[in-house]
């Protein structure tokens, strides 16, 4: 089977971001960019399914600027077979991305599509579910275990209060949670090999798809700062503060 994996280029999770001076967004110039951590887990899962013999091809796709080629090459170095960049303006909303991915799904006809559960920049947690709606495929969101069984896939999901297992008829959409796997690192020879793997670039404009934004960002501001606290030197002092000053116990 063919597995399609969607990956997103985001500001690296270790970077402390700051709001820009005009309060229209966050400052992203000269920041370290990486593959979204949940997308890394999605790539890893696809490669593991290939290694177990369930998949014969892993295709990675990204919707974004030319710079996203870097993240696609990273996915190729991890073991994906080929890549597709849908070149589009930065900051498309989830619905627009889901529509473009749905067009790629129609072309590629994968049996399984794996995405991260959310991107750590917009924190939306929508694209996988929207893609499932647009393709009519069943969805296994927040997956912590994936088992392909012939024409279906058993997905264990992390839900509030515990775990839930669903069986989805293929083709299906899966979004990854943190505990699904631990992504591998790319080796230097594989990084070199990845440079020769196919990477097709298509333009979002070539698809006749309405990607205009539905939301207007009015402003982006830094969250209110907490007043700096104090150090206490003993348990007694802590309890005294909590009882008499903060009055929370």
């Amino acid at each position: 089977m063919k597995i399609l994996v969607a990956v997103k280029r985001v500001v690296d999770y270790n970077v402390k971001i700051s709001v820009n001076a005009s309060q229209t967004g966050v400052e992203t110039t000269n920041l370290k960019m990486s593959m979204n951590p949940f997308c890394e887990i999605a790539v890893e899962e696809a490669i593991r399914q290939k290694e177990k013999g369930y998949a014969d091809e892993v295709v990675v796709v990204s919707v974004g600027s030319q710079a996203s080629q870097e993240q696609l090459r990273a996915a190729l170095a991890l073991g994906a077979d080929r890549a597709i960049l849908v070149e589009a303006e930065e900051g498309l909303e989830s619905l627009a991305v889901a529509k473009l991915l749905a067009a790629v799904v129609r072309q590629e006809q994968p049996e399984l599509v794996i995405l991260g559960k959310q991107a750590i920049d917009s924190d939306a947690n929508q694209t996988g579910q929207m893609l499932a709606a647009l393709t009519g495929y069943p969805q296994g969101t927040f997956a912590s275990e994936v088992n392909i069984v012939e024409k279906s896939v058993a997905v264990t999901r992390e839900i509030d209060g515990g775990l839930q297992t669903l069986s989805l008829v293929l083709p299906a959409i899966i979004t990854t949670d943190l505990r699904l796997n631990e992504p591998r690192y790319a080796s230097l020879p594989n990084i070199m090999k990845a440079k020769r793997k196919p990477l097709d670039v298509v333009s979002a404009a070539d698809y006749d798809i309405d990607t205009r934004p539905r939301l207007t960002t009015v402003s982006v501001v830094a969250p209110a700062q907490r007043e700096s606290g104090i150090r206490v030197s003993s348990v007694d002092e802590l309890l005294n503060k909590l009882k008499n000053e903060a009055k929370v116990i």
Partner: protein
Amino acid sequence: MKTLIIAEHDNLHLNPVTLNTVQAATQIGNEIHLLVAGYGCQAVAQAAAKIHGVTQVFVADNEAYAHQLAENVAPLIVDVAQSYSHILAPATTQGKNVLPRVAALYDVAQISDIIAVVSADTFKRPIYAGNAIATVKSEDCLKVITVRGSSFAPVESGSGNASIEPLSQVFKSDKVSFVREQLEKTARPELNAARIVVSGGRGVGSRENFALLEQLADKLGAAVGASRAAVDSGYAQNDLQVGQTGKIVAPDLYIAVGISGAIQHLAGMKESKIIVAINKDDESPIFQVADYGLVGDLFDVLPELTSKI
């Protein structure tokens, strides 16, 4: 202009986070209706009808909705949504699973995890793990929104008197089936709703040591939480994880024990009213957000704290 809220429940009990979601709807200002989709969920509908401010409760009680699978519930919501301007659900795993599917079927955007209502079409939501707050305005005719429960006070329940109307539409996908559920049983308050949360991190060291936190939590009537490091190390169940990728809590008192305070963890708890940090590393970033910091070994501090409360 009417708002439809998707009730959060387990077929037997209405999850209190629904009351926080009704608060957000009240601030939007429309007439408020509730949809209860489930199986054998009449008690939930009765409870929903008593929520202050709700005028109508719809109940879709059918085996197809027993586990509230997105493939079945989303088309039901789309079917009901035709006459509404806003659809709200709590930003729980259930709300996050279903609502984007609804939005895409309806061809509208979704606004995730709002923390404030500015007006009927403008909302605030955190981005970049809570390190920035975006104010967004929706151009769509139908606003599909998930609500961060901890940012809205619950409305009163018990005094309401909404009428209850059964729905007969059944949507059942043959592409998905429920296999099983493993839920954690706990006598402690639910993490999202607790007034006090005691959380442990990597510094706790083992699953056995987590008992020290549990003893303190029980003495305080608190819920127990954990950092991702503690969950990944197997010290705590993953549904206890507090953070960007786990639960978002805002209790009156949050006690962080052996937690360094990575930004992903802070995203889940920095709205707490009072934060206490207990850590032996004086340099831990958690001390930058803590109202009261105690530098010390948790194996000395916790038993002393528990015995003195």
